[in-house]
């Protein structure tokens, strides 16, 4: 076996292995950063965010326009503050846009759906979405259902 072939082969092999490790670390696991530079930030307060997580999608009419970049708890207003980074090519949301937390499918992940309002003014970087609707918590829904079922059965 030619020496040069051996060296090139081993070099390629090690490079491929390290590239795969790098790909596993950055692309597959939660180390990679997602906040690209061409996005702007909106915040919204929710009473209950359910199972929403950082990096959950933000959609409008089912189209993904950004991601949740941070989740915090505001202990003055007693509510969760969700920071969303929205791709900057979608910058025309009216001021009275509302944000709701929905679940994709029965067991799917939770996401924020924005619904544009009718105002002439647009939301800008750092603005807060005023109209919000919390996540549906299954226990609460079942509790309400049981309550109304027993009340109606009388």
């Amino acid at each position: 076996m030619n020496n040069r072939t051996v060296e090139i082969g081993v070099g390629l092999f090690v490079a491929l292995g390290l590239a795969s490790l790098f790909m596993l670390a950055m692309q597959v696991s939660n180390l990679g950063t997602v906040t690209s530079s061409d996005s702007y930030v909106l915040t919204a307060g929710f009473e209950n965010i359910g199972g929403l997580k950082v990096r959950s999608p933000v959609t409008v009419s089912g189209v993904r326009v950004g991601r949740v970049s941070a989740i915090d708890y505001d202990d003055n207003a007693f509510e969760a503050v969700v920071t969303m980074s929205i791709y900057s090519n979608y910058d025309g949301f009216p001021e009275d846009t509302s944000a709701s937390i929905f679940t994709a499918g029965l067991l799917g992940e939770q996401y924020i759906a924005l619904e544009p309002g009718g105002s002439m003014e647009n939301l800008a970087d750092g603005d807060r979405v005023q109209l919000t609707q919390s996540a549906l918590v299954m226990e609460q829904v079942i509790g309400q259902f049981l309550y109304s079922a027993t009340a109606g059965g009388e």
Partner: protein
Amino acid sequence: MLDVLQKLGKATLGFFERLGRGHLFLLQIFATIPGVLIRPRLILTQLYSVGVLTLPIILVSGLFVGMVMGLQGYNTLVDFGAEDSLGVMVALSLVRELGPVVAALLFAGRAGSALTAEIGLMKATEQLSGMEMMAVDPVQRVVTPRFLASFITLPLLAAIFSAIGIYGGYIVGVELLGVDDGAFWAQMQDKVDLQGDVYNGIIKSVVFGFVAGWIALYEGYDAVPTAAGVSRATTRTVVHTSLVVLGLDFVLTALMFGE
């Protein structure tokens, strides 16, 4: 009756004898590592025959394993409307289990058997005793470079297997079956943990590389120096490595992911 007992005792003693010799052999390998590190060229040629030549089988089977998982996972998950979780499923199964384990099994079949046959044949043709006559330590010259090469190789092979498997799942899930591209990667990144999943997978493959190299070399070095002996040793390498890898995988999984 006595005959049976005698055979049983002989087999038991033989088992412990081989086990003990195997561990002494390992100590012998460890003792010669510094001498080999001075001459990295020995390791380099072994990296080629152990690693580079195993690459095609790893690439092809990784791709197909990932594609099958994408297909099967999609068919199950779509019933629950959770096909967005396909990426998580494919990535977690590959990184935690299938990558290290299947890569180790393929490694045992492709490289381990070749190592055993090579060293067994060297022993049968008295090349090893020839080296000893020339005051060259055969363990240092022949065995240890191969051991180090398999130790280095298997983690890389497992990483390549996982990475290409995830792309296989991506091709089937996203390109063919229409899972959302963003959800595939985003959920994967959300659920796969660098520390808990990727590192543990690498640790597993390092352990498997160690064990696979050790068993293959020991079986070759300890083979009965005849044609039949070498062929039996080669079979034993594949069988023992597969069993030990699968057993160790359970133990390691219990240690890493159990409570």
